């Protein structure tokens, strides 16, 4: 970074701050959305309005600084509207919430595009800007899309004529007009700025405009006399020239504003008699100042300082007690702790046979090391844990939009938001959960009339909950909608040629909805039910070593429970020996193990073997065969069966011996080597040997199909 430290005049590379800005803007947008969703229009409190305003304001400031003009422009308009709201110059209406939410979405996509290196087409914000401007001028705009073109300038005139109440009332508004120098450029075609002159001709009361000399051949200068504020002028010009191309400076009418530089807005200045003012260096009238001579601050009554915002204050407090750390640093820490755990295990193993009398101190030290390592591991793992509220927080907005679109009434209840989950899992569970919630809103919850007819409350309820159960986290999506129809599912399954019977237990019938391409929706809606369905959800969850359970009662709703391991980095495993090799089975998939007699195993067609366990036949997989393990001697042979289960199906693995149960640190094999069939990862054992972790769900799938 040293190259950036050059003294004044250096080219500063602002791109290093982009990431921080993107994260910050994302948080601000989240917060804005949150407040907007909670906002009660009848009695919106100042704190909330100030909070939303500040979010837009912060994003605008950052976007402008870091050069994301499109984001800055959109958020500027949002800010103007919000400013009027917080000053109570306008009363909030639902259309405002809608347009602000949509604008927040648009800002998000614009930011995402910048983050992705300007890839893809930038979403158009013209319509949003038009709607915001109309709302800000006190009118309710027409619905979007109907009029995608920006309003003709003449029609926008009333917005300008209203008293300048925006964020910065024009200085001389009360006494009348200001004289401004407006520079437009650089332009490819100078005559393209003529439309600005026409604006002044077309809009009565806007003021007067005249050409002025310009020293820059690519720019046009105009001398303008107007009572409109800079913001209003910029908004008006924005229909014709890019905002960045317009510079407004005050020639007369403002009493402090400096006018020395006529072609640029004065970017800074010093107050003439202010404490700490420089001598003659300032470019403004401050030059005459007798700097630090008059340290007395002027009357305190002069400014109505903006009320401190308790909510914002709380946020600032949180910020000062947390630090932002790159995920890869945390992952590196976790990796190192993983290595430490392995080293510790190795020491423990090697010291097992030491004479406790002789090595008392060493062994006591090793015991401490053991305990500290475990604590350390736990602490480090907790860094990666983030609360489920991060995932849940996206659903209020999604359901609101969904309910609006479908004309349904849906309440969302969230429980257990503080339940923590590994960050990696959170990222991967978000999409499947979104799918499930959407499904509930779309197919589960009935239309209000239908609900009333059934004697249910008009508002449907979707409950999202998260809780810890043992070493897993269980996330439930529950609705009080129409539930699953057993007949419909069975009928559909038969149509698709699936092997089903009327005697199937409910649980098995519900699992059918996870079959590829299966949809019980009668209508394909815009929202869900387009074939990419629950099978993807199930596959994604299975890939996280998780499982999905469904429970439903027709007419009363359904419940989908997703069970996940707490983390992907550490796993409870059972180690088994085959030949000289050691393999790890995820303990969660192990059902039972037993010693097998040769006559319990039946060989069927193509050499496949089956074993009967408690009246159930299951395929036998000989580990030494699938991993081609060499045998040095013939004395040892596999005679232990380990039954593993995945997706409700079981297989029996034939191994030599059971070695033990322990927590293993999962290392990704794919990123270090390549994908290996039947293997999901690797770990390092206490003695330093590498053991492969078996992908039991894919083994079960392979054996069963």
């Amino acid at each position: 970074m040293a190259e950036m430290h050059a003294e004044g005049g250096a080219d500063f590379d602002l791109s290093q701050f982009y990431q921080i800005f993107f994260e910050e803007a994302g948080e601000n947008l989240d917060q804005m959305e949150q407040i907007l969703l909670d906002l009660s229009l009848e009695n919106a409190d100042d704190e909330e309005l100030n909070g939303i305003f500040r979010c837009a304001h912060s994003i605008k400031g950052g976007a402008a600084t870091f050069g994301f003009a499109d984001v800055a422009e959109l958020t500027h308009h949002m800010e103007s509207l919000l400013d009027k709201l917080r000053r109570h110059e306008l009363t909030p209406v639902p259309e405002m919430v809608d347009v602000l939410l949509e604008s927040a979405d648009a800002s998000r996509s614009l930011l995402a595009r910048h983050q992705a290196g300007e890839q893809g087409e930038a979403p158009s914000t013209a319509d949003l800007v038009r709607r915001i401007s109309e709302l800000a001028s006190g009118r309710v705009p027409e619905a979007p899309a109907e009029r995608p073109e920006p309003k003709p300038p003449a029609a926008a005139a009333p917005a300008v004529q209203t008293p300048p109440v925006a964020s910065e009332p024009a200085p001389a508004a009360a006494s009348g007009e200001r004289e401004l120098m407006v520079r437009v450029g650089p332009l490819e075609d100078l005559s393209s700025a003529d439309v600005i002159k026409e604006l002044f001709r077309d809009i009565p009361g806007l003021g007067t405009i005249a050409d002025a000399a310009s020293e820059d051949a690519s720019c046009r200068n105009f001398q303008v006399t107007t009572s409109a504020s800079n913001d209003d002028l910029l908004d008006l010009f924005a229909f014709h020239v890019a905002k960045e191309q317009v510079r407004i400076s005050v020639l007369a009418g403002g009493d402090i504003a400096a006018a020395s530089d006529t072609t640029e807005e004065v970017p800074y200045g010093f107050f003439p008699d202010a404490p700490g003012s420089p001598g003659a260096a300032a470019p403004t009238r401050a030059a005459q100042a007798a700097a630090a001579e008059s340290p007395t601050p002027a009357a305190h009554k002069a400014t109505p300082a903006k009320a401190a915002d308790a909510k914002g204050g709380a946020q600032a407090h949180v910020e000062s007690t947390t630090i932002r750390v790159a995920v890869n640093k945390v992952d590196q820490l976790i990796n190192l702790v993983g290595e430490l755990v392995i080293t510790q295990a190795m020491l423990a193993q090697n010291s097992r046979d030491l004479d406790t009398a002789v090595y008392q101190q060493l062994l006591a030290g090793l015991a401490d090391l053991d305990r500290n390592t475990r604590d350390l591991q736990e602490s480090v793992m907790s860094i990666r844990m983030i609360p489920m509220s991060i995932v849940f927080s996206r659903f209020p907005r999604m359901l609101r939009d969904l309910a609006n679109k479908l004309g349904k009434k849906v309440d969302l209840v969230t429980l257990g938001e503080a339940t923590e989950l590994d960050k990696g899992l959170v990222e991967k569970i978000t999409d499947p959960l979104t799918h499930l919630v959407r499904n509930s809103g779309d197919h589960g919850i009935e239309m209000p009339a239908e609900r009333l007819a059934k004697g249910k409350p008009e508002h449907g309820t979707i409950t999202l909950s998260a809780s810890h159960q043992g070493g897993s986290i269980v996330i439930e999506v529950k609705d009080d909608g129409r539930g699953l129809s057993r007949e419909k599912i069975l009928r559909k399954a038969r149509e698709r040629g699936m092997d089903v019977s009327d005697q199937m237990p409910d649980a098995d019938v519900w699992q059918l909805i996870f079959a590829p391409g299966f949809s019980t929706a009668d209508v394909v809606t815009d929202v869900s039910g387009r074939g990419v369905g629950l099978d993807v959800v199930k596959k994604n969850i299975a890939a996280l070593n998780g499982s999905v359970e469904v429970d439903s009662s027709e007419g009363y709703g359904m419940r989908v429970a997703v069970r996940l391991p707490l983390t992907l980095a550490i796993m409870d495993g059972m180690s088994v020996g085959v030949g000289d090799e050691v393999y790890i089975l995820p303990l969660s998939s192990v059902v039972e193990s037993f010693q097998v007699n040769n006559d319990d195993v039946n060989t069927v067609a193509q050499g496949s073997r089956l074993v009967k366990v408690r009246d159930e036949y299951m395929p036998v997989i000989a580990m030494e065969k699938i991993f081609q393990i060499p045998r040095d001697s013939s004395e040892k042979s596999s005679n232990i069966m380990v039954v593993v289960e995945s997706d409700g199906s079981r297989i029996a693995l034939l191994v030599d011996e059971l070695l033990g149960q322990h927590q293993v640190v999962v290392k990704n094999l794919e990123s270090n080597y390549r994908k290996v069939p039947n293997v999901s990862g690797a770990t390092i054992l206490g003695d330093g040997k590498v053991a492969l972790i078996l992908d039991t769900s894919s083994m079960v799938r392979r054996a069963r199909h």
Partner: protein
Amino acid sequence: MQSILAVDDSPSMRKMVAFTLTGAGYHVVEAVDGQDAYEKAQAHDIDLVLADQNMPRLDGIGLTRKLREHPKFKTVPILILTTESSDQMKQAGRAAGATGWLVKPFDPNRLIEVIRKVMP
């Protein structure tokens, strides 16, 4: 080394300002809002204050007013960063005892230029 108290509730702006000023050879004390700045101002030797205007808890002008009440900050230059270069804001800043203002967005070089002009 001269110390600058940089106050902004936006982490990215704060980082940018701190990076710029550190590069220009100043020591930077960061604060997340006016209240935090006021507390940090008591604890450090500060040669110049650079404060954002719009912040939670205590804004730039409010911070200026509070600082000026202290003998220690009677003559320390205080610059307000603002997105509004409106005269109303300027008058409020001046009344509170601010030394000057700098309009956001600004270029890092411009920031250094302004700081050099007022740094005692």
